[in-house]
């Protein structure tokens, strides 16, 4: 019975989001993957968040070599499902629309992805560093695959900025 319902959810989403997404799939019961272009990501996530009352769990960023993949994890509690909105931000244009400017829950994770992976969230209201030290050199992103610890030496740190 539950299985049938979930198929319905999938078809429903497919119909409503048809023009906005690249691909939609259901690898397991209670989980839906949606792939979107970076330009449409904010729109689709906001739509799911507001229209279906999805709870925002978190977002994750991974370096996929050809770009940074950002996955927004949304939980749809009325159907006990998790919806993952995936988008690949290419290295040639590391920009994506900020969702945090409209929904405050997205702000901190966007700050973290910004400092760790170097994705620029357009329109974010408060893009300070979250976890990295203020003295950490600008333009270095520690969670990228091509980052080595030897890239940052003690001379690169700017302790003037650390507030002491």
């Amino acid at each position: 019975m539950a299985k049938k319902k979930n198929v319905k959810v999938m078809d429903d989403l497919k119909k409503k989001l048809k023009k906005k997404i690249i691909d939609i799939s259901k690898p397991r019961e209670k989980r839906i993957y949606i792939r979107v272009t970076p330009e449409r990501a904010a729109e689709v996530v906001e739509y799911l968040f507001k229209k279906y009352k999805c709870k925002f769990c978190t977002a994750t960023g991974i370096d996929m070599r050809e770009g940074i993949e950002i996955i927004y994890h949304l939980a749809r509690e009325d159907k006990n499902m998790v919806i993952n909105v995936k988008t690949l931000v290419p290295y040639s244009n590391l920009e994506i629309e900020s969702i945090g400017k409209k929904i405050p829950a997205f702000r901190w994770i966007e700050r973290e992805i910004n400092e760790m992976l170097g994705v620029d969230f357009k329109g974010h209201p408060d893009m300070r560093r979250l976890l990295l030290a203020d003295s950490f050199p600008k333009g270095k992103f520690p969670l990228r695959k091509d980052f080595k610890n030897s890239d940052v030496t003690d001379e690169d740190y700017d302790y003037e900025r650390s507030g002491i």
Partner: protein
Amino acid sequence: MDILKKSFKKSIWVFHLSTAACNNCDIEVLELLTPRYDVERFGIKLVGSPRHADALLVCGSVNAHAKPRLLEVYRQTPKPCLVVAFGSCGCSSGIFRDSYSIVGPVDKVLKEEDPDVKIVYIPGCPPKPEAMIEGIIKGLEAI
């Protein structure tokens, strides 16, 4: 200098500083103050300001955010002072040594500021209370 040596004989006042520690060492330090070990009977006690301290107890692998703070506290401590690099992280940055935010263990950071700094190393994750008392005693003998 004799009066300084005399002042180090008894009642070591310790300032406890946590530089990016996981808090396990900090909890073990409190164990020393409980009735079982009770280091206050030797006059060793924790004080609230580095300006009152004879010894600095530094826990944790020093990260970039904590480094200027550690140096500032070291500058404020009256010299001569004893620095205790506490736990595996304090001695060698421990398992965090290859992390991007770590700028080195306690001795590396402090030797940039003062090459003659006196450091006692107490390894362990966390060190046993007996080891801590032993370490402080050895440090005092060295001064």
